[in-house]
């Protein structure tokens, strides 16, 4: 019982920085726009976050092993393109098309991971290469054209339970599963260990290679799951989608307090990070802010959220002593 309470207490403390930031944003937007607190606004936000959240979950894992994956935006475009081609050109049924799409994500992640491990290269540069390659492949798969898919994928967004759309539910499930894997499984322990001190892991008789490979594969696959959500939302596959989305995903993860230096992170926090970014986007749009203003505010909020987070850390570390 005492344990439970303590857990709850820790949990709140862990997320307090982000909750404060989120509440502040909501309050500001609530006050400065007429119709912010409406069901539609929240549905809009709920519609927007699945793709970025799912992608950010994968990114969390990669950042925890002190890697980075810059290719997720392009992989999203490529796997979305493959999904489109499978449905439109090859007339595959949706489930098969989705499998093909996730296969693409898997292969991209596998290649990233393989090169990183085999030649011991920084993942930054390897995935930067993949960013270009996957984008090029997406252009060539679609012939650089947007491909309209229509109802065949729209079913995904239209399916709903308890008033929540399927993508949202999937995103939440992935977040929970991700957090569980990170916090409770052997795999989770090992990747945190790799991020903290890879050499020590190796010297403890555990090969970091295969584990890291898995992390890149997970990230690739999750990027392609995000692609399914994204494509469903747009009813079409567009080879230009996901441009710069890698930076958004990283921002979400880092706002969530995951360290870029590896060894520390939380998937739930990442979810909050994605939420902050989505609320910010929706709110600024509702306010009718001009592009320069939007950019400047977005930049400031990203940094402010991270600064806030450092105070949370100081707070909690003072509590412990």
């Amino acid at each position: 019982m005492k344990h439970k309470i303590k857990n709850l207490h820790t949990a709140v403390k862990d997320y307090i920085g982000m909750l404060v930031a989120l509440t502040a944003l909501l309050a500001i937007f609530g006050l400065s726009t007429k119709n912010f607190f409406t069901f539609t606004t929240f549905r809009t936000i709920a519609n927007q976050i699945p793709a970025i959240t799912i992608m950010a979950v994968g990114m969390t894992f990669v950042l925890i092993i002190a890697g980075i994956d810059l290719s997720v935006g392009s992989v999203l475009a490529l796997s979305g393109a493959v999904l489109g081609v499978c449905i439109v050109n090859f007339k595959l049924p949706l489930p098969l098309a989705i499998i093909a799409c996730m296969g693409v994500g898997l292969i991209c992640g596998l290649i990233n991971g393989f090169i990183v491990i085999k030649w011991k290269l920084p993942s930054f540069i390897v995935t930067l290469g993949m960013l270009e390659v996957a984008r090029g492949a997406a252009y060539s798969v679609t012939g650089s054209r947007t491909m309209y898919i229509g109802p065949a994928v729209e079913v995904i967004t239209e399916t709903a339970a308890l008033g929540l759309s399927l993508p949202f539910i999937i995103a939440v499930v992935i977040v929970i599963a991700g957090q569980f894997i990170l916090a409770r499984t052997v795999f989770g322990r090992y990747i945190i260990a790799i991020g903290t001190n890879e050499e020590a892991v190796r010297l403890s008789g555990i090969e970091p290679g295969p584990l890291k490979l898995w992390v890149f594969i997970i990230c690739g696959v999750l990027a392609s799951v995000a692609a399914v959500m994204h494509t469903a939302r747009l009813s079409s596959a567009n080879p230009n989608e996901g441009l710069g989305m890698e930076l958004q995903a990283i921002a979400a993860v880092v706002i969530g307090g995951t360290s870029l230096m590896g060894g520390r992170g939380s998937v739930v926090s990442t979810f909050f990070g994605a939420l902050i970014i989505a609320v910010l986007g929706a709110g600024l749009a509702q306010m009718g802010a001009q592009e320069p203003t939007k950019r400047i505010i977005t930049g400031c909020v990203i940094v402010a959220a991270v600064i806030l987070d450092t105070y949370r850390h100081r707070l909690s570390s003072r509590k412990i002593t």
Partner: protein
Amino acid sequence: MFKACGIHKSYPGVKALSDLDLDLRAGEVHALVGENGAGKSTLARIMGGIDTPDSGQMHLNELPYHPQNRAQAESSGVRMVMQELNLIGNLSVAENIFFDHLPNRFGIVNTNRLNQDARQIMQRVGLGDIDPGIKVRDLGIGQQQMVEIAAGLSQRCRIMILDEPTASLTDKETALLFDQIKKLQTERVGIVYISHRIEEIITISDRITVLRDGKLVATRPTGAVTSSDIIRMMVGRDLSAETCKRQRKPGQVALRVKGLSHRDKVKNVSFEVHRGEILGFAGLMGSGRTETMRALFGADRADEGKIYLYGADTPARIRTPRDAVRAGMAFITEDRKEQGLLPALPVRMNITLGRLGRISRLGLIDAARERAIADEYIDLLSIRCRSCEQPVRQLSGGNQQKVVISKWLHKDCDILIFDEPTRGIDVGAKFEIYQLLGELADKGKAIIVISSDVKELMAVCDHIAVISAGRLVAQFSGQEWTPEKIASAAFSEYIKNPTQGHQPNEA
């Protein structure tokens, strides 16, 4: 039960082992001794599967034994505790102890069992007061060493290799470790024990193998040799282990500390050091000696306390290490890997880092002069390296320590704080360092030495202060100290208030 013949191993530029033979019997403690860089750790790593020999045969229970990695060695029943700490700071103590075999079902960690099992093992090595759920990062280096040992003991094995397990342990933990070793002996486990502490080796080992420059000098039963025999075989000449402590005349007060406090690690510590004097700090592991010095040096921001330098009436403002260094203080940290060295950079750059002004004009570095100075210190402390261009990372532990010391010697400060200066250093070099400390004191420097080895403190210091649970509980000088007095002082605060100090996490 284990046999190695004709092992060769070279690293770029050095022959770490040449034509080495070793045999190990079940239930014996086989000590490996030798100077820094003699090849002890290399041999241990080869046995433990971390390095592979260039040539040579190994047999385990009459079967060829050629592990390609740590996991293979462990599956053959060979476990080791490495010289350098290899813990994962962000994981808990329990997770570190059971790292390569976390209890799990379907990949899900059974936390309760993990913590229970960990608690048991921790009890055995004297870490019983620590919560197994606390992150290793939050432990002091001595406690981390104990965690390493606990991890080594966590599994049954046939051969246990301990590479300088006691380098940062105090007598109390060392005694606990010896109990564990004896227990393993009764289980017929063969133990390879590497240490630079000759008395320890004489106490615990059955046979001794001496290495010099990667070559086998001799293997002898412990009963047949005296400590000076061992030293002679190691160093190749006679060395009187007795220090030539001369009577020193302390000069004016160089450093006066009043009421220094930091969090609950350092409580109201006051002391003073004179020029030409060596003040030792004794205490149990985790008692707060390091924390005291960090607060003094500005590495951590002290909550309270005044520091008066060189007899001044106004307290000095020391808020960062930079202030401290400007005021003429030096701090040789206990954790050389994380806090002292630039591992990837050449020896030369490490030595000159603190005082680039001396080798530069108008901000330009004079490379020739830098090399000359580096070579000078390499000579002075007989640092064993290929050249001053070799990355420090590649040096043996003891030689790395010497590089850190060179850095501060080059900086030429008036007040020097040595935190475990002889950690992992061979007897010969230790002797050199004692001499060096003496010389520095003779030159009128004020010196503070922290050591977990009380005998060492008694050998070099003029005064010894004892820290217990963050308080300075006693100060002894000259002839009044005995090991017993020091030990009882070190325990005093914990006896008074048993919950303190060892459980930093229970707020």
